[in-house]
């Protein structure tokens, strides 16, 4: 199936029938590759995070030849490592009423009814296996005194189903997957290539058959051929420049596949997390998340009057606006992420922000300290307070924290069917890089679940079906398509290196980030989005005229790497705005000012927008085509989310 042949209709290949048995029945229908034949197939896995690392390990264990590449110097450093809070699973160990159905329902509702029922149900089902697997690998999850696993609560759920390893859950899960991966490297099933960046997909006879990478140490372009390609390259929150993502997180791999015809779904669904340490100046390179658990005891406020420059302790209670408590009395400081972020934006837009940049609000623990005592507050939040102190040099026991929303996660990504295959046969997308499970808003502790679910438990089944059911001739890297792709990449690198202008790559990335943050961040409207598209185009034009990229292509060259990524982000940013413009409704993290209730809440339009918006590339200077996958809700009842 090629995008062009779809005639605007996308088939997710979801199995029908009862939701509860879909995955089991589907597995029964999938074709198998016999043990002796698996070693005849080569699978290329790009990325070594929770999705890529788990997939490469699992496929190696099954006996496939796996080529696994990562952009970092070691697979253990993929950005999944930075996830703090935990991983959800419907184990119901606390006996508090959890079930596979409840996890499924919470995830669908949390995504504001913009995700596919079949995929989400499978995710909830497989969540329990993930915990078993990780414990067997030696992941030191938190335990009770009796020696059994313990859980904590997370946003968007009324049960405790989050497993965690202190504030380092992502790190521990990743090290588990990394161990399994290294075991397969030792066994000779996985060939590992670190410090490689994928710069193009090689498509032969309409199927994904290989990739072109740049060796980030030598600068050499390298060809890798295989029978299928798995992209596990994460999200695109760095389109905003400042985000909680890593410096090297980027969208180049998914973007270049989009340009080969893989559809890009829901690019406007980007999550802005409310509690991050605010920006201090233009020299800053990233934003750091503070766990949302802090809002259990912290009170969020700003001065009542714009331009009030007094320090927090000089502002009496009567001149403070505890705006979340005022606007959302029922939920107070514990409103969901999207609501809290938008409210913080509203008060800073009114000129009531705090700190030197005025782009922050207070998260105040003074009342908590009075009520609970310093010791209890330290017991609950000690490590977070210490981290805040390290970064800001301020003691949150004495002065209120300053926090502000920051881009964190992207629900959008390349479109995949139930088998995690994109619209390019053989190209599969796993983890944050795909769009499939979180709709318009992801719940906390669900990203880790999805990455491992895709890699350990879904792709090992569905990849076999593709390989067994597809006539795949032998292809090696001498094929003309590889030479053509390499030439294209080489020319792209050359074009970037010709830049000898007056602005750095970072300057451009910063400006792109500002355009998107202001007009396609927490709050969007048609005028602003149209403006953003114009501004991005102008900036992109200026980039190619006036960027300065030092050094050569035949060496370790960070500036060159970043230049290529930013060039792709201009294009992706434009598509993000276009998608936001197209979606004339508000849902989850997508808030269109034109579509709100009189109280300023999201106004969803199920009659017209209960679909996945998947974009098809039609040329550099042509308008992309929108394809719609209608979302069928056969099990859940579409309801309004309200937090008043």
């Amino acid at each position, binding site marked *: 199936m090629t995008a062009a042949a779809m005639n605007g209709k996308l088939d997710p290949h979801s199995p029908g029938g009862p939701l509860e048995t879909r995955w089991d029945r589907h597995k029964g229908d999938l074709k198998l590759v016999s043990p002796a034949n698996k070693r005849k197939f080569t699978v290329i896995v790009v990325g070594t995070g929770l999705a890529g690392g788990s997939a490469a*390990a*699992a496929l190696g*264990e099954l006996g496939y030849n796996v080529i696994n590449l990562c952009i*970092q*110097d070691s*697979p*253990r*450093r993929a*950005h999944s*490592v*930075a996830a703090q809070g935990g991983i959800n699973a419907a*184990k119901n160990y606390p006996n508090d009423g959890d079930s596979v159905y409840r996890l499924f329902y919470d995830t669908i509702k949390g995504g504001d009814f913009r995700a596919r029922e079949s995929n989400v149900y499978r995710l909830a089902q497989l969540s329990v*296996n993930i915990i*078993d*697997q990780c*414990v*067997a*690998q*030696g992941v030191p999850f938190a*335990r*009770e*005194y009796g*020696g*059994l*696993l313990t859980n904590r609560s997370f946003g968007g759920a009324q049960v405790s189903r989050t497993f965690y*390893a*202190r504030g380092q859950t*992502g*790190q521990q899960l990743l090290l588990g997957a*990394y*161990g*399994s991966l*290294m*075991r397969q490297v*030792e066994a000779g099933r996985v060939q590992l290539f670190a410090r490689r960046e994928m710069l193009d997909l090689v498509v032969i006879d309409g199927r994904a058959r290989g990739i072109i990478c740049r060796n980030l*140490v030598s600068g050499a372009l390298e060809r890798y051929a295989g029978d299928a390609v798995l992209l596990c390259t994460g999200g695109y929150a760095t389109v905003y420049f400042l985000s909680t993502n*890593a410096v*090297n997180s980027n969208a180049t791999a998914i973007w270049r596949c989009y340009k080969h015809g893989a559809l890009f779904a829901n690019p406007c669904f980007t999550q802005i997390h409310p509690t991050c340490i605010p920006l*201090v*100046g*233009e*020299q800053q*390179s*990233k934003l750091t*998340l503070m766990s949302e658990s802090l809002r259990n005891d912290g009170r969020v406020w700003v001065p009542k009057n714009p331009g009030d420059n007094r320090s927090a302790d000089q502002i009496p209670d009567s001149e403070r606006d505890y705006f979340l408590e005022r606007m959302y009395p029922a939920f107070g400081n514990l409103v969901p992420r999207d609501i809290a972020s938008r409210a913080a934006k509203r008060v800073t837009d009114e000129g009531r922000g705090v700190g030197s940049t005025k782009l922050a609000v207070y998260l105040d623990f003074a009342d908590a300290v009075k009520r609970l005592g310093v010791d209890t507050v330290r017991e609950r939040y000690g490590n977070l307070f210490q981290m805040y102190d*390290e*970064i800001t*040099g301020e003691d949150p026991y004495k002065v209120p924290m300053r926090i502000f929303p920051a881009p964190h996660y992207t629900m959008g990504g390349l479109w995949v069917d139930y088998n995690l295959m994109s619209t390019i046969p053989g190209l599969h997308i796993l983890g944050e890089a795909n769009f499939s499970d979180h709709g318009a808003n992801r719940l906390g502790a669900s990203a880790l679940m999805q990455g491992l679910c895709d890699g350990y*438990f879904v792709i090992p089944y569905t990849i076999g079906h593709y390989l067994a059911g597809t006539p795949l001739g032998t292809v090696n890297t001498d094929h003309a398509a590889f030479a053509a792709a390499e030439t294209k990449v080489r020319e792209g690198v050359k074009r970037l290196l010709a830049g*000898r202008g007056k602005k*750095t790559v970072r*300057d451009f990335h*910063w400006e792109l980030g500002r355009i998107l943050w202001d007009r396609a961040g927490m709050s969007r409207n048609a005028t602003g989005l149209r403006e953003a598209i114009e501004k991005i185009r102008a900036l992109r034009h200026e980039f190619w005229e006036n960027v*300065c990229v*030092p*050094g050569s292509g035949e*060496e*370790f060259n*960070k*500036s060159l790497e970043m230049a290529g990524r930013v060039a792709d982000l201009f294009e992706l940013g434009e598509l993000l705005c276009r998608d936001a413009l197209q979606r004339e409704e508000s849902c989850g993290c997508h808030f269109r000012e034109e579509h709100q209730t009189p109280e300023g809440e999201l106004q969803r339009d199920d009659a017209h927008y209960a679909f996945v918006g998947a974009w098809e590339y039609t040329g550099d200077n042509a308008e992309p085509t929108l394809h719609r996958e209608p979302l069928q809700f056969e099990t859940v009842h579409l309801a309004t989310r309200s937090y008043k």
Partner: protein
Amino acid sequence: MSAHIGNRSYTLKIWRQAGPDKPGRFVDYRVENVDPAVSFLEMLDQLNEDLTLKREDPVAFDSDCREGICGTCGVCIDGRPHGPLPHITTCTLRMREFSSGGVITVEPFRANAFPIVKDLVVDRSAFDRVIRRGGYISVNVGSAPEANMTPIGKDVSEDAMDSAACIGCGACVAACPNAAAALFVGAKVRQLTLLPQGRVERVHRVSNMVGQMDHEGFGNCSNHGECEAACPKAISLENIATLRREYARAALGLR
């Protein structure tokens, strides 16, 4: 871009080396208008912005998460891996710790087993090869028993977590006068030995990992304790004691 808002300035003596086999040397740079709130790496970013616009080669250094968990970054600052503060990585170290006008020496993590790639970037793939030889529990996907089948004491689990917190940055090696990797290897061995599911492979694991560690050219541990002091995650020397115990146990043929 609007003007930088910082008010501090520094002289940086930075190790420049074009490649693994090229000669290296210290080069002095001046960096102005540094905001005390930015991180050490953001200060280096700022220097690189200036160098780029002056058509000079920016200083190569590694970093990724910039919040102290991925282990990618790490340079020696005035001779100390990750700089003057304990329990912190280079990326979370702030410029307010350095008085304005001062001279700061910046070098790569130095060890035979960590060849220099360029400037401040080193190749730490030796760590991956050590892990490859047994730094895991051999369990295939799909064969895991129910997670609560084996109770593990909270204290044991917390102890294992203390070891598992290692971020693999290599500061321990850089701090050690012998460039030993005993703390790194010990942390993984201890984590997996403490846990019942990891004990099955304890003999092979420690023998193979130590064998690889020696093969990679890491030095021998002679109890200086510099590694623990430099470790951003406070991995304790107890992990080296465990490593020795396990190695002796394996050598004696105990199961």
